């Protein structure tokens, strides 16, 4: 299994009150899967995604990605791990506004040992793949929302990560752009074999995934996140 989650619990405490964001979740995700995480607002979808992606830590339980327990890594190791293994797609795109599409996509590669030439090849290939080969010198504000999100997808896949995680990637997009972005993710999954975990509360978006996991109040709804 690529992702193996066992008895994962995440508690938040607001002074006296404790919120159980995730309640002893166990879940497996295989390499090459496209999984949709669904559930009402506050059900713990983002929290689960953040722990898998190594930007949050569980209160207890394990989260193994490729046999590494993410919770065991130090801050610095975790940063390196994210750079190698995770591609992020955010609801709000999160491109750096003062950098061009090209420069945004190049960012994660600056942490690798690739030469300038190799970086150029990778960046251009990624932008071609998302259909923005002709927008490389544009700044984010010169792009439409859908185009911005495609740049973000190019940035997420340019390092050839183990996982692509997307938190409501179509939440800020119109229906047409949403279709484009979801189609792109589906293509990446089907044709390039990328493992994708996507949080959404839109059933139409979830329909693009192969498998849908339902969360409610921090628990898996059907209780069998694990593969049979």
């Amino acid at each position, binding site marked *: 299994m690529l992702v193996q989650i066992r008895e994962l619990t995440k508690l938040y405490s607001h002074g006296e009150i404790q919120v159980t964001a995730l309640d002893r979740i166990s879940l497996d995700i295989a390499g090459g899967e496209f999984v949709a995480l669904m559930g009402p607002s506050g059900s713990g979808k983002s929290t689960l995604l953040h722990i898998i992606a190594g930007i949050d830590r569980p209160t207890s339980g394990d989260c193994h990605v490729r046999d590494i327990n993410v919770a065991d890594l130090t801050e610095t190791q975790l*940063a390196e791990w*994210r750079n190698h293994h995770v591609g992020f797609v955010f609801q709000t795109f*999160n491109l750096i*506004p003062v950098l061009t599409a090209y420069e945004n996509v190049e*960012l994660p590669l600056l*942490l690798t040992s690739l030469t300038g030439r190799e970086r150029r090849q990778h960046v251009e290939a990624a932008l071609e793949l998302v259909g923005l080969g002709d927008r490389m010198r544009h700044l984010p504000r010169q792009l439409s929302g859908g185009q911005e999100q495609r740049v973000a997808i190019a940035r997420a896949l340019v390092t050839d990560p183990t996982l692509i995680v997307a938190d409501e990637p179509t939440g800020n997009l119109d229906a047409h752009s949403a279709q484009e972005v979801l189609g792109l993710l589906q293509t990446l999954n089907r044709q390039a074999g990328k493992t994708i975990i996507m949080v959404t509360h839109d059933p139409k978006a979830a329909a693009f995934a192969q498998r849908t996991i339902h969360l409610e109040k921090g628990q898996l709804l059907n209780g069998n996140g694990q593969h049979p």
Partner: protein
Amino acid sequence: MAIPLKYNLRSIRVRWRATLATILGIALVVTVFIFVRSFAHGMEATYVKTGDSRNLIVLRKGSTAESSSQISREDARRIKYMTGIARDEAGNPLASAEIIVLILLKRMDGSGTANVLVRGISNTAIALRPEIKITEGRMLRAGLNECIVSRRIADRFQQCRVGDSFQSGKTTWNVVGIFDAAQTAYESEIWVDADEARSAFKRNFYGSVLLRPENDAAAATLKKRLLDDRLLSIKVQTETEYWDEQTQSAGFYRFLASFLAIIMSIGAAFAAMNTMYAAVGARTREIGTLRALGFHRRHIYISFLLESIVLSLLGGIVGGLISLSFNLISTGTFGGTSFAEVAFQFRVTPQLLGTGLLFALIMGVIGGLLPARLAARKPVLDALRSV
């Protein structure tokens, strides 16, 4: 590789309104620093060149400068005719009872008036100061309100060419010569006859007596004789000692430069810090994004620290350019200890520019440390969630 510098440069440019005040603040500090320092430099260079170790200068006991000293006419005469003073070919003692006064003259460029130092001299004054050369016209003669003017003053003030005359109070002074003072303090003076000066400016005393002992051996006895004379209440120094003491006031300006610079730079460093805190606040989500992409805390820290340094170096460069423009426009004149128009050479040396930039750099580092630390320490998730 770290976060590219263009990220910081462009962020500064995008937020230029917010950063401009900080850049100008730092520029101001650097300008003032360079300005006062170069003033001190010029002063030192001038005073170091002034003074002849063979001459003795007599002031009233307790005075530190000619401008605050008074020697009565009787005392001056008494001093002049002491034994042990060298004599010129005509047999007159090489002693010059002198007085300095300030007058207002119109600047050549029409930018108003300034105080100019007028020195009343005896006719042996030039013999006592061989570095002074009349380069145009002739030496002044007593009786006709004649004056000679230093080259610098002639160039900088109206009605100071040979043949011109200028008015001061009820007296009209006729310019008969121009002198070159070999970059000594006399370079910014006008010389007239001491007794004419006394009557024109209504003083019944002199300020100092400059004299030349017959030789080194005579100097010591002459000094002792002067000090032992119970009718005289005076102070005797070699002329070199006197100007060394004046140089101490350059030391004061050097101190003032450092003092002003430190006070102002604390303010500027706070401004830089403020700007950087605002920058970190405004870009928190970008910091979260960079961290998610795999950049370490250290990368974020260095990036924001560098941004603060870039910001302050920009200020340093602007400040350097401002002071350089002063360097080109004028030789800079300033009120010295006597608040006269003293033409110190205002020179911005490369070394001084370097110090100014270093200064800016330090302000950048100090201003950037805490905001950069704040940026680096933000938890990734909190940063990503910020709006």
